[in-house]
């Protein structure tokens, strides 16, 4: 318990808290407009009000409220993208590593190609053709993740494959599918967990970037990236619209990165190459 990254955990906990309890923490609506109240500065500046602690945006929506609900969006997108992308990567990594041979070669070539190419471009393409929405962005970000997961998991599987209990399982006549699910999978879960935490930051930034570019979560749903984009035009008169959500993103990503590093050092230091 000594060296735990308390600050990082604190920030993460705070974000989760905001995300889960958003409706309780604020009684403003994140999407209702109120043009009378537009562009109010944060409470500590002249003209600010305690009712809108961090000010309001061009549609009169409370920034703090949107920050809370934005946390929610980030969390949902992140969880789903990690599940889908990470899950696919995990499965493919296990199959590729265990089965080996041509399947392995082919899959790894694909992984190489995927890693060599900026997947954001496909994400943008998807946004244009499938339209914006949760489904699109989850798929888009999953495209980014699967290759990284697949490669690392495959490496682990290659090591696990050598262990004696796998040979024993084969001797007992277990089918490859069963061996993979029952024997290999639990032994790579450690690595998988670490990978998940290490990539939370990447996913959050990816979602924010896509939303910023207009290819992520569609308005009026609040997303921190979208908030930064919307505030961009007013940077000279209403700085809080872009700056504050950006600070939130940076802090949360920083916290997750540091926590992920700590977890990796504890559970699986050989991943340090990442």
């Amino acid at each position, binding site marked *: 318990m000594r060296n735990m990254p308390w600050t990082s955990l604190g920030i993460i906990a705070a974000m989760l808290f905001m995300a889960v309890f958003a409706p309780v923490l604020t009684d403003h609506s994140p999407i209702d407009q109120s043009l009378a109240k537009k562009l109010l500065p944060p409470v500590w500046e002249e003209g600010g009000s305690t009712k809108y602690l961090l000010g309001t945006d061009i549609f009169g929506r409370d920034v703090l409220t949107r920050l809370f609900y934005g946390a929610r969006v980030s969390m949902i997108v992140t969880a789903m993208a990690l599940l889908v992308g990470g899950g696919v990567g995990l499965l493919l990594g296990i199959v590729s590593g265990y089965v080996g041979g041509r399947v392995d070669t082919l899959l790894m070539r694909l992984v*190489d*190609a995927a*890693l*060599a*190419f*900026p*997947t*954001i*471009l*496909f994400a*943008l*393409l*998807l*946004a*244009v*053709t*499938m*339209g914006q929405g949760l489904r699109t962005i989850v798929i888009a970000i999953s495209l980014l993740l699967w290759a990284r997961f697949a490669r690392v998991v495959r490496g682990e599987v290659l090591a696990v494959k050598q262990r004696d209990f796998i040979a024993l399982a084969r001797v007992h006549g277990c089918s490859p599918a069963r061996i993979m699910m029952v024997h290999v999978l639990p032994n790579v879960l450690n690595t998988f967990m670490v990978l998940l935490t290490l990539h939370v*930051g990447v996913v959050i*930034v990816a979602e*924010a*970037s896509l939303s*910023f*570019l*207009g*290819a992520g979560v569609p308005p009026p749903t609040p997303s921190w*990236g979208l908030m*930064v*984009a919307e505030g*961009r035009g007013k*940077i*000279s008169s209403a*700085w809080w619209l*872009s*700056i504050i*959500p*950006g600070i939130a*993103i*940076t802090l949360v*990503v*920083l916290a997750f*990165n*540091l926590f992920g590093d700590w977890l990796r050092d504890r559970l699986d230091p050989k991943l340090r190459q990442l």
Partner: protein
Amino acid sequence: MRRYILQRLWQGLILLVLVTTIVFFLGRLTGNPADMMLPEDATAEDREDLIQKLGLDGPLSEQFFLFIGRAVQGDLGDSIRYRQPAVDTFFSRLPNTLLMVPGAMLLAIVMAIPLGVLSALYRGSLVDRVSGAIAVLGIATPNFWLGILLIFVFSVKLGWLPSARMGGVAHYVLPTITLGTFLVAGFMRLIRSSMLEILDSEFVKLARIKGLSEATVVWKHCLRNALIPVLTLWGVFMGGLVTGAIVTETVFAWPGIGRLTYEAVIFRDYPLLEAVIIMDAVLILFINLVVDILYAYVDPRIRLAD
């Protein structure tokens, strides 16, 4: 060395074909692009018209071969917004990007090498910790926000630097810093870790035994070996560079291909987006090849093989 280069070229071409195929099918399988481009009040007739015009009628396989056929001749469709061949639009904007991106890379290299080397040499010292903090922050800060923050501080508040578009030297400063930051963070960590490994090698010990000065040992013997992983891991940076370029150009309204990508997305200019992605793949192939050649040249183990 020749075999190595040919191999890389071959791999690059396969990647290009793969990307083109994916772009083609991704667009057409997830929905009809025509629907994305039609205005709200379009009639069924308008839709049919557009579909025909875009060549979206007919079986998919037929479309594919038509597409490939045209692509090889350099025709990737016309941009809806600009009403000209997409490839032309791409090349007209490319020079602007090529003016900015190398600057960012140069900045990154110039900063990352000394910081990385010093962090490794004086491990645990103030330099190391500060550099480490910069690296961690650099990776966590979203590129687009950094740009906006810089605009806010240096343009709005201090009025020192312009905030958008191309122009004189002053216009280059902020975009270069924005794009360069994440590169610096990545390079620096890499150089640091590879230096640390190399500093422990036997040949370094021998160099010291020969009586060479510490400076010679570090900057001549170690650094050259330490830079090799930067080249081999270049592919990883490439992806981030492209994303960074798109975002940075958007923030600073820089008229390059990054911004062009953004425009294609915002205006749902599907043919243009398709074309940009494929051209990006070509560009990436080209740059990767250059890096590979550089790597083969720098590492005599590759240079002299075959």
